[in-house]
């Protein structure tokens, strides 16, 4: 098959002072008609930059220095801005990671899709309406007529992404560039969107350049794969070949870092519960001046769980299932409406603020976003020493202890007087863990501790958590949306849906033989399941 889009020796220079001279270095890729080419790599590998270069939407301070981008007999690298405007949307269309920011919040979805026709064609208003409706039906949005009139915030994340795909496909482009289109979505929604893209691509014969960091997704939809690292394509080939017999060490490492979806052998832990949740509920009431637009959200409903001493309990669920609210109730960042949270028998839910401050050191939290969870204006050593200082440790001793904690979590103890922005995401998460450990807690609550990190970094941080658990005898409550994360470190798992625990038990049992239909659908939606199974049987 002939190439629709070919990138030859593309080099993009970064501004001086960046971590490397080139964002892309001599990238050569070929996208053939009717195939899905997956470009895989971790953050900073240049995969998104490749897409921007093809669309000629590079940021101002980076420049295309060498190479050609051939599309329809023309070299886009040298094309005039006027020419590019005609190609964007009509010849090459793009969908983005976060559909909420890519859609204009003030205009109905139908109107925004119609915009594509208004710009590039001279169809009448009536024809545009009909075409828009047909497109929304094509992407299988529930109730297309209603969705046309809806504003972006009235649709769910998955529906918004469908609307974005409809918009991208409006002018039957020959190439569709999808930049991490499912990363912001839940597993079950991700599975639906992936099958939609696959299906549309087969039906319409569009060539798809699919950018992702997730080898599970690659296994799910790719025809061919290109692996990028530091702006260089290190390996490319047929999907089956790359997945099953990777040649380059980086590809091997990436595939190995994809966690297996099978529970490790059960570990021994005590039967005695250190943390007990009894009938915890939390309801949010919003709006409602004189009873108008009042909305009641039952975020957590009657949840009872037990965390055994030295064990790890995973709470798994999709966004909106109430798992983060539950974690915040446990930490008393939110006061639950009813129920008891017993730490070694003491009920935390009814403590006064002063009592709670005193008992804070027994239970500590690791947060999701390593960028938002560290105060940007404090040195990292101080951040770690803060807790002990509050609880009465002299400043000097606390700072000295911060140094030893840095060593414990695998950071350079000499770096304690730097600021958070000087560290990478994975390092910041280690600082967050060090801060939580500074108070020598018995229970660690980790809310999505790895979801903002690259796969290979995820594996390292999870390994660190498992090691610390062993060495310090910690009990961990781990909140995650990713079943592949839960299975690596948890002993027990509870699956949450709409604020309720629908199934719980030892992780091996829940994953091998899920009882609740929701658990079954969650497990079935994990991308790359078959590839995983095949890989396991080979090992």
């Amino acid at each position: 098959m002939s190439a629709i889009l070919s990138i030859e020796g593309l080099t993009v220079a970064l501004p001086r002072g960046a971590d490397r001279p080139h964002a892309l270095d001599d990238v050569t890729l070929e996208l053939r008609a009717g195939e899905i080419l997956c470009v895989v790599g971790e953050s900073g590998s240049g995969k998104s930059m490749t897409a921007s270069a093809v669309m000629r939407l590079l940021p101002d301070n980076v420049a295309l220095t060498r190479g050609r981008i051939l599309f329809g007999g023309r070299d886009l690298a040298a094309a005039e801005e006027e020419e590019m405007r005609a190609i964007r949307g009509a010849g090459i269309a793009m969908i983005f990671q976060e559909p909420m920011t890519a859609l204009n919040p003030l205009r109905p979805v139908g109107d925004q899709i119609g915009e594509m026709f208004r710009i590039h064609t001279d169809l009448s208003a009536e024809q545009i309406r009909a075409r828009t409706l047909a497109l929304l039906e094509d992407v299988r949005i529930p109730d297309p007529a209603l969705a046309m009139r809806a504003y972006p915030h009235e649709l769910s994340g998955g529906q918004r992404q469908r609307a974005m795909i409809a918009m991208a496909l409006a002018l039957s482009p020959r190439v569709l560039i999808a930049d991490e289109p499912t990363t912001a979505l839940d597993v079950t929604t991700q599975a639906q969107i992936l099958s939609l893209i696959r299906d549309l691509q087969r039906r319409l014969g569009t060539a798809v350049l699919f950018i992702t960091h997730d080898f599970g997704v690659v296994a799910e939809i790719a025809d061919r794969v290109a692996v990028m690292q530091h702006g260089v394509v290190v390996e490319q080939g047929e999907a089956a070949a790359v997945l099953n017999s990777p040649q380059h060490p980086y590809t091997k490492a990436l595939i190995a870092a994809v966690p297996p979806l099978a529970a490790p052998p059960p570990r021994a832990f005590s039967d005695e519960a250190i943390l007990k949740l009894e009938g915890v509920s939390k309801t949010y009431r919003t709006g409602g001046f004189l009873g108008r637009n009042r909305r009641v959200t039952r975020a957590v409903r009657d949840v009872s769980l037990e965390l055994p001493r030295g064990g790890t309990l995973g709470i798994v669920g999709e966004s909106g299932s109430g798992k983060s609210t539950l974690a915040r109730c446990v930490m008393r960042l939110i006061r639950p409406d009813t129920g008891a949270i017993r730490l070694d028998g003491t009920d935390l839910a009814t403590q006064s603020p002063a009592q709670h401050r005193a008992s804070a050191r027994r239970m500590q939290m690791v947060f999701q976003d390593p960028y938002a969870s560290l105060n940007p204006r404090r040195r990292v050593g101080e951040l770690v020493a803060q807790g002990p200082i509050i609880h009465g440790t002299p400043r000097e001793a606390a700072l000295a202890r911060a140094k030893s904690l840095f060593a414990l979590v695998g950071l350079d103890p000499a770096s304690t007087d730097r600021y958070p922005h000087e560290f990478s995401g994975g390092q910041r998460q280690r600082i967050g863990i060090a801060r939580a450990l500074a108070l020598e807690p018995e229970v660690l609550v980790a809310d999505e501790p790895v979801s903002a990190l690259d796969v290979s970094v995820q594996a390292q941080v999870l390994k660190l958590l498992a090691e610390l658990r062993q060495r310090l005898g910690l009990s961990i409550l781990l909140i995650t949306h990713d079943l592949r994360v839960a299975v690596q470190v948890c002993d027990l798992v509870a699956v949450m849906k709409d604020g309720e625990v629908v199934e719980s038990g030892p992780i091996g049992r829940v994953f091998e033989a899920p009882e609740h239909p929701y658990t079954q659908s969650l497990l079935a939606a994990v991308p790359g399941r078959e590839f995983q199974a095949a890989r396991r049987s080979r090992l």
Partner: protein
Amino acid sequence: MRFLRAYARSPAAVVGLLLLLLVIGMAISADWLFPRDPLALAGRPLQWPGANPRFWLGTDNSGRDIAAQIFHGARVALLIGLVATSIAVVIGIVIGAVAGFYGGWVDDVLMRVTEAFQTLPNFLLLLVLVAVFGSEISTVVVAIGIVSWPAPARLTRAEFLTLRSREFVEACRTLGMRDAQIIFREILPNALPPVIVYASVVMAVAILLESALAFLRLSDPNVSSWGNLIGLGRDVLRVQWYVSAIPGLAILVTVLAVSLVGQGLNDALNPRLRGR
């Protein structure tokens, strides 16, 4: 150092800083250049600038040296600006921080009070305060501070609303930190840059408010302020216009300097505007 370089990139900001240094220089050198009381009679009234080498900016309708009043007036202007701004910003930060951090009914109550202040034109409120408490310079300065706090309060509150739900604030809570410490030591440093920038606006307005009061002859007549001089010059405005114009120019230069410095600070402190 990086901050200074970012600041120096804008020529307007540098000009503003130079003008401000000039005004500060005038205030410092006043006693040395004009050791006599600036409000004492110095010579024949209403001499034009340049007419008498002793009074190079001329004399006013009472025969006082205008140059001496301008130099000593710089002290009063800066004093009013700094003290009134500090009062306004401190009140504003405390109220805005508490309202933004706690939300709920605390926020409701504090914001209604703020709105009550904002709905009144602040010059009218200032007139009422001066009418009630007298027009001594210290009273005037405090009164200006009291009418100027609502805007910094709203700004601080807005910053706190976005910062209070950040994970680093939750992290401080889980460490068992007290609220006061979270508000003032953790969140405030992050919320401060826009408030500091806004303080320059408050300062410029404070200087103008005092001048306006003085123009109406409601400010302290025993102080050599630029506003007093303008007010005095009002009687002879058609012929000896320089009596009002010279202090007017001084106010213009000072307010301009403060605003340009504020703009420069904003550009230097706001990373999103960098490189534009």
